[in-house]
């Protein structure tokens, strides 16, 4: 056992300063994005609506814009309910 302990101790461990840096970089990357992100969503929704309204007749409450932030990538989800008397509501999904 002693011999294994010896090898374990010899394994270099990341210094606490290095861990501090890594943690800061991760948390701050998220915070910087969220600081600016919520602002553009309402505008995006309005502009999307304007574009679609040029081609189809739709109600404002039938558009839903959602932003999900994951570790690897983020998803912008846009749900648009198109009016159609015969067919079931159609859902468009755009992933970025």
């Amino acid at each position, binding site marked *: 056992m002693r011999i294994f302990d010896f090898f374990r101790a010899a394994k270099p461990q990341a*210094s*606490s*300063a*290095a861990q*501090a*840096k890594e*943690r*800061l*970089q991760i*948390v*701050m990357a998220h*915070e*910087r994005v969220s*600081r600016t992100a919520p602002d553009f969503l309402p505008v995006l929704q309005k502009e999307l609506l304007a574009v679609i309204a040029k081609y189809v007749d739709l109600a404002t409450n039938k558009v839903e814009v959602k932003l999900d932030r994951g570790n690897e990538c983020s998803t912008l989800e846009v749900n648009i309910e198109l009016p159609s008397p015969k067919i079931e509501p159609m859902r468009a999904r755009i992933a970025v």
Partner: protein
Amino acid sequence: MGKIIVMTSGKGGVGKTTSSAAFATGFALRGYKTVVIDFDVGLRNLDLVMGCERRVVFDFINIINGEARLNQALIKDKRVDNLYILPTSQTRDKDALTKEGVEKVLEELRQEFDYVICDSPAGIERGALMALYFADEAIIVTNPEVSSVRDSDRILGMLAARSRRAELNEEPVKEHLLLTRYDPARVERGEMLNVTDVLEILAIPLLGVIPESQAVLRASNIGMPVTLDDKSTAGQAYRDAIARFLGEQIEHRFVKPERRGFFNRLLRRTA
């Protein structure tokens, strides 16, 4: 027209007031007419650090409310020419700082002074916002420690979005990083974030590194800005930072551990 500089950090206890006093004194020593204003309404402390606590009659809030004239509230430093202190109120709260009131006082001061230093309170509330709102340049005081670095980043976000320059779409507030309480020996042992790490994370130009020094507490004990202690490493580091602010090219000192000789170690000489 004088320049308005805010000394800010988000986090408390990192050295804003010490640095405000040190910078104001340094500018005045260089011959610039300087005033330093305490924005920490209710928790007045700049007067103690500057050693003029017994000479406070009127304060910043009295002027905003029109209860006194500027000349009645400004305290002239007894050690350094060209140096003035504008203390804050101890009894009112930060709501006493109105945007119009602060603007009026700062505009009047910048007519007469070369540098107007705003010593910001900690936090991101009204007092801190008012201290940074009218700034031309900002000195971000940061300790090499996770919470301080994160809070500095929040303040940088505020400067970029909520300052007057940002609101009027003018040239952005010029940012400077002042890294304080730096311990090169602990950095070398991997126990403390190093300058490069902090710079990489915050991504603003480095104005200076102030080493951890016993001289800082000693100076505040006697109400003397640490710039006047030119034998101390902290005092010298502040003088270097001030020279850099004024455009001089000076190499960064005190970022590597000091190699102490046998006699120094024997005498336990520090800072």
